[in-house]
């Protein structure tokens, strides 16, 4: 390539790209091997790698770059991207020659403008391609979720037996931290479907799991709410089951389904970016294209022009998607609402989404099933027995419980087998060292879990202290409310992990960098749940209460302590439950962030202890035991805290506070 001849010096390569090149060359080959392969003296290699090398590079450098280009096209592409930066820097040389040649300044301006433009424009197409890949995943997952919701939601609503199986299962599924299960999913799918299609499917499936449950609940609720007369009429005129689905169930489900799709889109976007970034940690799993990939790689190269463009373009596409697809869908769906229900076409559906998330939070924590599991956990270990027991009574119940317990035990044994290692024989079970190993892994997991717990709750407390007053203040002030809610809605639509590279770059020289990055990501990913919940609730504080406090001249902290805070208390709790749930999900991207290439991976940030970090490492190293223990321990902790603390807090606050007296 002729152009590479002008690579006269390494200084045009940005620092991060230089680091990449260094790693690329040294880690893959080893310095000595590299010198051997290229038949160049070691000293000159160092010369090249040293940014402020004493002499301009020569033949040797060019050969090294050439070699890199041929051997590692992906990285080479990145270097080519940097060449635009080079062009700009070479402009000064050009300028001198232009000046000396006596050519006009005008030509110089045109050329320089073109070059600057080129710097910006060159990334747009690749970024749009990346976004297209991501959007394909999102839409595929959304489509799957809609189909799944209809199938499962309608079945649960019209069939009593199906209802008793489906509802508890959905309940459990929506309360586990899904992102933690991503590694297992990758493994499982790679066994069935090796290579890129498997990973693609894993990502789509992950997004699906973040979207589907609340949508299925929405369909179930909507179909359940169909007036009885409709169905009687349908039976009367002899409608077949299929045409009932087509003409009654599906139309009736549209409004709730569309509104929930809005929530699902937000949540799914978070999982999309997270999963794409997670796959980057190991070259074997990495997806080739996607906005998460683009963002992480540009950032790793230190190419902040491209990174910023990627974030801006993502935001743009996001806004367009909402404007031309999600919002019109939600508004269109309103026409399927029963006439007596007030239509709220004037309310921006996007605004309603966080309230919906809060609704889900309640279902998440207080499912009958979970309660019964805890109550029965030391007696017959049987969640399945629970619904069987509801169905049958007396001797039948006993039999059902017996069968269910047996079934569950079998399931546990099967799970244990996976835990111990796929396709491993039972031999290690009898050896002491195996159990010792398991115990020491669990010890590691518990320590990590403790650190993550403190991290999540610390950020949670900070968010409370910041978010609650801010939300109440803006809700009560007519001047503040409009601008604040607009700005925060836009800000909240950016999936937090997208900002990860920027945060890393900003915090790179701070002490406790890993902790700060983790804290910021957790905060960005979860803060909005508290903020919007409280904002919504504070808007409904009766005006007379505020007036009463003015009339009685109650001011300052008393007004907050006696009126504002208690008014929004139930929303603080639902917001908190969703916050904590969201925060556990962010850990996998917050606590550990690495970018891999075929030459190995670079850890850009990490905390010392943390369950997210452990899960990431387990994923990248293929440590199944660590993976399963981490997931199980984390899920257990979350469920226990939900059932004890949050259940109490929810019951207490909804009874004492708010306006539902």
């Amino acid at each position, binding site marked *: 390539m002729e152009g590479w001849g002008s690579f006269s010096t390494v200084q045009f390569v940005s620092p991060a790209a230089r680091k990449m090149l260094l790693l690329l060359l040294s880690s893959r080959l080893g310095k000595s091997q590299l010198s051997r392969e290229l038949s160049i003296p070691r000293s000159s290699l160092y010369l090249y790698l040293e940014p402020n090398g004493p002499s301009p590079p020569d033949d040797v450098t060019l050969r090294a770059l050439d070699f890199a280009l041929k051997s590692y096209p992906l990285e080479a592409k990145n270097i080519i991207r940097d060449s635009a930066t080079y062009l700009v820097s070479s402009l000064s040389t050009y300028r001198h020659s232009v000046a000396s040649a006596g050519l006009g300044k005008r030509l110089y301006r045109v050329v320089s403008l073109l070059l600057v433009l080129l710097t910006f424009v060159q990334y747009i197409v690749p970024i749009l391609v990346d976004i297209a890949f991501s959007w394909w995943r999102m839409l595929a997952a959304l489509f799957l979720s809609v189909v799944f919701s209809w199938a499962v939601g309608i079945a649960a609503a019209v069939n009593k037996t199906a209802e008793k199986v489906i509802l508890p299962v959905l309940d459990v599924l929506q309360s586990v931290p899904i992102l933690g299960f991503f590694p297992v999913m990758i493994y499982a799918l790679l066994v069935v479907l090796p290579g890129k299609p498997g990973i693609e499917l894993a990502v789509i499936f992950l997004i699906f799991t973040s979207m589907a449950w609340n949508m299925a609940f929405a369909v179930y609720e909507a179909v359940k709410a169909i007036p009885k007369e409709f169905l009687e009429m349908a039976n009367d005129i002899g409608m077949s089951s299929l045409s009932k689905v087509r003409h009654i169930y599906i139309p009736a489900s549209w409004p709730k389904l569309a509104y929930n799709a809005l929530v699902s889109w937000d949540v799914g976007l978070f999982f999309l970016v997270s999963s794409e970034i997670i796959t980057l940690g190991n070259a074997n799993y990495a997806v080739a294209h996607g906005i998460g990939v683009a963002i992480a790689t540009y950032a790793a190269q230190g190419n902040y022009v491209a990174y910023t463009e990627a974030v801006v373009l993502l935001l743009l596409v996001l806004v367009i998607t909402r404007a031309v697809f999600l919002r019109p869908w939600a508004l269109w769906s309103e026409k399927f609402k029963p006439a007596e229900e007030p239509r709220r076409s004037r309310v921006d559906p996007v605004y309603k989404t966080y309230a919906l998330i809060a609704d889900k939070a309640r279902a998440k924590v207080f499912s009958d099933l979970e309660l019964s599991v805890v109550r029965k956990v030391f007696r017959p270990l049987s969640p399945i027995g629970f619904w069987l027991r509801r169905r049958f009574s007396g001797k039948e119940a006993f039999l059902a419980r017996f069968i269910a317990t047996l079934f569950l035990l079998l399931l546990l044994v099967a799970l244990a087998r996976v835990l111990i290692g796929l396709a491993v024989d039972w031999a290690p079970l009898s050896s002491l060292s195996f159990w010792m190993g398991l115990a020491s892994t669990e010890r590691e997991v518990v320590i990590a879990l403790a650190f993550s717990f403190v991290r999540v709750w610390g950020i949670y407390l900070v968010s409370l202290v910041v978010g609650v007053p801010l939300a109440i203040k803006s809700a009560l002030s007519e001047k503040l409310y409009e601008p604040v809610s607009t700005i925060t809605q836009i800000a909240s639509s950016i999936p937090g992990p997208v900002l990860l590279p920027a945060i890393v770059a900003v915090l790179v020289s701070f002490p406790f960098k890993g902790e700060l990055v983790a804290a910021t990501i957790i905060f960005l990913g979860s803060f909005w749940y508290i903020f919007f919940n409280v904002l919504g609730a504070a808007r409904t504080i009766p005006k007379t209460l505020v007036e009463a406090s003015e009339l009685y*001249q109650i001011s300052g902290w008393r007004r907050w302590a006696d009126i504002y805070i208690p008014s929004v208390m139930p929303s603080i709790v639902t917001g908190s439950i969703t916050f904590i749930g969201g925060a556990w999900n962010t850990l996998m991207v917050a606590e550990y962030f690495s970018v891999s290439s075929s030459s190995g991976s670079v850890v850009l940030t990490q905390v010392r202890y943390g369950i997210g970090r452990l899960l990431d490492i387990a994923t990248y190293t293929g440590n199944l035991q660590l993976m399963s223990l981490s997931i199980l321990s984390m899920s257990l902790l979350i469920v226990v805290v939900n059932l004890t603390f949050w259940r109490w807090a929810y019951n207490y606050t909804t009874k004492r506070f708010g306006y539902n007296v």
Partner: protein
Amino acid sequence: MYEANSGVATREAAEENILVVKGVSLTIPLEKKTLEVLKGISFAVREGEFVSIIGPSGAGKSTLLRVIAGLVQPSSGTVFYRGQPVTRPSRGISMMFQNYALLPWKTALENVELALYSNDQLTPSQKKEKALRALESVGLAGFENAYPGELSGGMKQRVAIARALVLEPEILLMDEPFSALDPLTAEHLREEVYSYIINPSSPVKSVIMVSHNVEEVVELSDKVIVLSPRPARVIGELSITLSRPRDKKSFEFYTYVDQIFALLT
């Protein structure tokens, strides 16, 4: 002659204006135009008078009450309380809100105490004592630890009365005090409420009530101010000189009711 028999007038013979509303207008700037809510409203309330403000819904009755309370500043015009312009809430004027504005997370007693929070001259135990007495005076002794959610509509109303009275106001403003109750209960309670507020031991000298129920207004008031639809102007002022307790079936009673209906329509 009738006036001499009315409960308030017998107690307070002095015919002094305790409150004067003078040319009060209120316009609210909206995005494109301005909304005229009140337009040049003037009337006076004498000591010992029970005045009602009646008008079509949405006319701005409640807003007018808030201007009198000092919660809302008029665009022009002034409200004088004992000769002093009202610019912010003062202790002499208390208000009972529509739906009562009771805090569901506070007991009846705490809700009454709320009104005394800003009073620095009283110790906490004095505040509690006062609040208890206020609850007793409305017949709620024994219910001080009940939460609003556990009380009936009529009892909630009485808690609200106690809270308004505990400040020992000279003027009590009532914003549709009976609209949160079912019509039957409201019918029964009017006399009772009147007796809680207007009696020899009550500090209240005058009452201003906002309502859209004509019979209620005739039953309780000494004077009725009739407002026009928005922007609200005073389109009629009417003295009611029936003896109390008033006979709702009497011919005179219905003459007044008809008179007000005629003004409203």
